[in-house]
């Protein structure tokens, strides 16, 4: 960050990273996607790897991620970002490849790709935004929707007898030998944001070691889908999401 002093002699200490484009985010007010986009691009800027980074956008709220992330990117079919990322990484084994996916993309339609990409130990970063709902399509149930949680397709709350259990996909990934670094973070407080940024940084720093997949889940909010204000959504998340999706590292390099 070059030091730009303002008129009253103050030093610039924080600004939007240059690796984000000028396009305003389309996300709903208070949505965690915007924070994670910002953090990921801050790390890309700080590591100076913009010219070697290729990102894969999913289908979901972040389908337009390539409008905001100023790196070469590809748009994957729904659920297939991990396979597309594999195709890119196999062609460019020494470049930084990440796939950025939501819970429907990664843990419903794309479960097969997610598990096999991890099982191959593909040397990519998977950023997994878990807000337990299908945001883009208007708030339907996701595989990570909590029991009893109301969504547009679980109007009476998710019932295990009918729709099964919330899928703790990250825990599955952590069991695979191909997983090198697996962590679950959040971006609802300043401390959580700092930890998520550190996790993203570690994950990208690990990539050249070619020791396997780095998987960063970010438990996030969906004010519109959950029908709450952003502040209420973050409080609700702490109370209800964290018990099911506890934050912390699930697997760290030995």
């Amino acid at each position: 960050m070059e030091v730009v002093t303002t008129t009253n002699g103050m030093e610039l200490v924080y600004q939007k990273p240059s690796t984000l484009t000028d396009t305003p985010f389309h996300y709903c007010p208070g949505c965690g996607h915007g924070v994670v986009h910002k953090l990921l691009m801050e790390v890309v800027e700080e590591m100076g790897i913009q010219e070697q980074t290729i990102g894969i956008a999913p289908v979901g709220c972040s389908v337009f991620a390539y409008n905001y992330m100023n790196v070469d990117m590809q748009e994957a079919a729904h659920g297939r970002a991990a396979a597309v990322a594999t195709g890119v990484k196999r062609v460019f084994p020494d470049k930084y490849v990440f796939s950025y996916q939501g819970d429907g993309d990664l843990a419903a339609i794309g479960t097969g790709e997610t598990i096999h990409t991890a099982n191959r130990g593909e040397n990519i970063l998977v950023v997994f935004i878990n807000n337990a709902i299908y945001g883009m399509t208007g708030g339907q149930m996701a595989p990570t929707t909590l029991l009893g949680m109301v969504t547009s397709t679980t109007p009476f709350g998710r019932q295990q007898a009918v729709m099964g259990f919330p899928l703790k996909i990250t825990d599955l990934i952590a069991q695979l030998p191909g997983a090198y670094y697996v962590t679950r973070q959040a971006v609802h407080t300043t401390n959580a944001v700092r930890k998520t940024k550190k996790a993203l940084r570690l994950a990208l720093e690990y990539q050249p070691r070619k020791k396997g997949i780095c998987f960063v889940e970010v438990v996030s909010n969906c004010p519109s889908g959950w029908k709450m204000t952003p502040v209420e959504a973050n409080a609700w998340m702490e109370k209800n999401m964290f018990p099911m999706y506890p934050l912390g590292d699930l697997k760290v390099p030995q």
Partner: protein
Amino acid sequence: MNQKKEPPRLMKGNEALAEAALRAGLQAYFGYPITPQSEILEYLTEHGAKRGAVVLQAESELAAINMVYGAAGAGARAMTSSSSPGISLMQEGLSYMTSAQLPCLVVNVSRGGPGLGTIQPAQSDYFQATKGGGHGDYHLIVLAPSSVQEMADFVFDAFRLSEKYRNPAMILADGALGQMMEKVSLPAEGSLPPGDKPWATVGKPASRERNIITSLFIEPERMEEVNLHLQKKYHEIQQEVRYEEIETNDAEILLVAFGLAARIAQKAVELAREKGIKAGLLRPITLYPFPSQIISSLSRKVISFLVVEMNAGQMVEDVRLAVAGGRPVAFKGRMGGMIPSPEEVLEEIESIAESYRIPAV
């Protein structure tokens, strides 16, 4: 494409195709086992790495085509192969690749269907291949080999055309062509240099804007622009039409058949000629673009058409469109992986000749 060729050797169709792909500068192959084409995957897993190609067996054909998408989007000469059921799983990916304008080669060593079907050869994927089995207005460039030699040669053509037009190309073969062994003289290595792909996602240097490979165009005005561009491309692709004419100059009964069925039809033409019936064969080599013009012009000279296919009648529709009612278009087909015999086809020719009382010469 007349590349320098080596002296012929005996090879299985699938392996000749895989070896030709490596010689054509294949950089990335993602496949999945399915009879009758697994040898392509096997050959490439054995020889690909040492010849500079990344080769990976994916967890499904669905994953494979999306890996091809990623590799092609990164600028690599990419390919996959499968057989009918697997190709069905790839339709969504192919639709995405046409909209994102990504070149690649997809090989369908087709088998009897529908459903799990059988592993015997068939041609019942013609509609899927030429009319677009996925969603949206798009086409694949489709080449139909009818020999092991063409299984090898058409790989070069498919890569060249797919990169020239930035559109996936398909080789529509079948289980027999894949499994049988024939003499083949393989095209020389390196006769198809890699093209320049400024649009590929290789990592954004400071000197340019970021490259985006996408098939998402949310504003309808933009989506229509993309479609108009694609249609213009498909119009230009018509010039790439290829076909073979066998004894068509004086033919009164003109057979139309592609791939394996064309070999059988050719034998039937011989048998008919021996009986004094003037039969001929028009063999489409490109199924898209379809050789409508030559069929239309030949229709002025012939008395009747006989389309021979290993399906319930698919290409016959395109022949009828080309003939536009000018002449009768009969159809002879076998389904479910059954292969018609030349004699069966000869019977059809004779009954057509009979019905028009064409005097045997």
